[in-house]
């Protein structure tokens, strides 16, 4: 496994890795960056195109303010310095899905630079074995926090979509996507392993969605990642050479590509080959990176300032005497920005310190349950109930929905209000702990979040049996059906009670509380023995 091999390379003490990212984020806007056609995905081919998108003569770019505001929110979230004056540039290359022959970007004069992003280390279940040396929680109330410097954030637009038809030797072009607003986030090479890389991207993904910068689906569709990976011998300085891995579209691809590349470079260095600048891509079928082009084949993009767009000015409260309402005030955006995911988690640890630890929060983060947890907490009015809810989330719900996609579906089927109602019923002993997993599974499968809890309980007869007389009748009946357990109780009471408990649960579908039924069995069996 590449993951284990890469972890072994890094923990050997002979090498260290430097990893940086270039992340392209599709902005959540209705219209495109420089034209007013729709930026909605998956529409009829070539139906969202303006003359500018086709580079027709005479058409000019007209910059979308909403794209700028989304970019500024990203810059604030990544603690970047906002450059009050920035320029758009043309990046020239010929390709059929780019009708103008250039892309408008901000390579040399970005609107934001010199930031730093803090993120907690996270781990997915399958990485547990190879990552046991990592420490995730600093103490009871805090995570291990890593940081990665942000070199720059630049505004640019997307290109059209190309479909290669090898048999007919042609390329089919759809310009719907051309001109959609993007930001490119370029980091410094501060990441040192695939685990840190994945943790960084997951936290960044959380920030982008929370600040309404990109669409809800995040890395899977709205974000593309290029990773720059280089491995160096310990106690040597980096020589600047690195491998660029293009177009990684999922967290798993990022992790696997980095692990493969670390192992590959280790083999080269061990055999006294040097690492030369190269561009590679990741093959998701073969789980390896493959060569695209060498440094000598690098494209000369002939950057030049975009002559059709004047310089972009940003303002703040100090410039009130200069700007009008038509311009963007950075301080206005800062005042309205929500709390960062990291600060929000610190708040939870403080607010729920009676029962919530950093370990719990780390587990909720790992399982992508943090938003569901937050919503459930708001519907429960005391810490006792909240504690029960947390325990159920990290046991029963975790078993039902063990990854991000499943938890999102669970959250739609079992609304936070319904879940809170279930917890209140549990606390009042209207339902048993034992029946909870079955109840949650039934609610999840029904996919009807408007249905009341009462309707589920009535339909499947899941109310707990609390009446003592009825309990005694049930226990007597079970004892008659299991005479061997009565004899067994004399020699091994614990085992006998377990067997009787199992029988009663099977027969009555978990409607009986553990503590009550054990007490009744003990009383009846002691009476019989005497």
């Amino acid at each position, binding site marked *: 496994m590449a993951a284990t091999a890469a972890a072994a390379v890094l923990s050997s003490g002979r090498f260290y890795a430097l990893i940086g990212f270039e992340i392209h984020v599709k902005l959540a806007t209705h219209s495109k960056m420089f034209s007013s056609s729709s930026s909605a995905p998956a529409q009829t081919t070539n*139906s969202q195109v303006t003359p500018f998108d086709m580079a027709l003569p005479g058409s000019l770019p007209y910059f979308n*303010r909403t794209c700028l505001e989304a970019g500024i929110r990203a810059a604030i979230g990544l603690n970047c310095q906002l450059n009050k004056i920035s320029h758009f540039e043309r990046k020239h290359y010929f390709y059929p899905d780019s009708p103008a022959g250039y892309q408008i970007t901000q390579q040399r004069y970005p609107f934001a630079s010199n930031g730093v992003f803090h993120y907690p280390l996270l781990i997915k279940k399958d990485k547990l074995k190879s990552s046991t040396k990592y420490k995730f929680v600093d103490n009871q109330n805090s995570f291990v926090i890593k940081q990665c410097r942000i070199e720059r954030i630049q505004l640019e637009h997307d290109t059209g*979509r190309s479909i290669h038809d090898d048999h007919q030797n042609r390329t089919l072009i759809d310009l719907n996507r051309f001109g959609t607003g993007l930001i490119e986030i370029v980091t410094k090479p501060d990441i040192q392993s695939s685990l840190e890389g994945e943790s960084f991207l997951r936290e960044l993904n959380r920030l982008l969605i929370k600040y309404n910068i990109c669409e809800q689906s995040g890395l899977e569709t709205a974000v593309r990642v290029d990773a720059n990976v280089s491995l160096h011998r310990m106690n040597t300085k980096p020589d600047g050479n690195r491998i660029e891995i293009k177009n990684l579209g999922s967290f798993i691809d990022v992790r696997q590509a980095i692990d493969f590349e670390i192992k590959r470079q280790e083999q080269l260095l061990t055999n006294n080959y040097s690492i030369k600048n190269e561009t590679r891509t990741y093959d998701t079928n073969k789980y390896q990176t493959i060569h695209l082009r060498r440094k000598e084949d690098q494209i000369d993009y002939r950057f030049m300032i975009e002559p059709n767009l004047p310089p972009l000015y940003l303002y703040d409260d100090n410039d009130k005497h200069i700007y009008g309402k038509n311009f963007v005030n950075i301080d206005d955006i800062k005042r309205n920005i929500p709390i960062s995911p990291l600060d929000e988690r610190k708040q939870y640890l403080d607010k729920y310190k009676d029962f919530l630890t950093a370990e719990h929060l780390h587990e909720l983060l790992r399982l992508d349950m943090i938003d569901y947890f937050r919503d459930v907490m708001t519907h429960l009015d005391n810490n006792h109930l909240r504690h029960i809810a947390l325990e159920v989330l990290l046991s029963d719900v975790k078993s039902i929905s063990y990854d991000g996609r499943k938890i999102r579906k669970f959250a739609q089927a079992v609304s936070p209000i319904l879940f809170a109602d279930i917890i209140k019923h549990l606390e009042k002993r209207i339902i048993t702990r034992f029946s909870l997993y079955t109840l949650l599974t039934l609610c999840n499968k029904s996919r009807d979040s408007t249905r009341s809890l009462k309707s589920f309980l009535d339909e499947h007869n899941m109310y707990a049996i609390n009446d003592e007389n009825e309990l005694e009748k049930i226990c007597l009946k079970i004892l008659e059906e299991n005479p061997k357990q009565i004899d067994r109780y004399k020699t091994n009471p614990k085992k006998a009670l377990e067997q009787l408990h199992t029988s009663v649960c099977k027969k009555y579908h978990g409607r009986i509380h553990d503590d009550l039924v054990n007490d009744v069995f003990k009383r009846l069996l002691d009476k019989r023995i005497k």
Partner: protein
Amino acid sequence: MSLFILFRRSFSILQQTKEKILSNPIKIDIDMQNKLEHLSLISFQDEKTIKKVEQTIHSSNIIHQANVDHLQPLYTLVETELCPLRQTDTISIEKTLQTKQVLENAANIYEEHLVAPMIGKRESQTVEKVDTTKL
């Protein structure tokens, strides 16, 4: 009289510059030829064309003799303007072309896609492959 002296001096500087350039001829090697062809999408087919390109570069090199130390480049005629912002993020149906308008000047189309000759994958592009013979 002073105008005449100025003219003679300018002409003399020009002559000197031309001589300087002629003594350093431009030569396009095979790597540079490949790079220029790739960037311009123009094939330089024969020696005669390459020679013409060399001469053009040669003549244009005179521009490097200008002293621009005290100047800033004029990137755009509107550099003193502020970048205008489209204030509302609304979709304009009037400005969006209909599909038939997008395709009307295309020589080849296929199922409402524009058709371009295959020139190879671009590494930064998410590319889909489809065999349209089986559609």
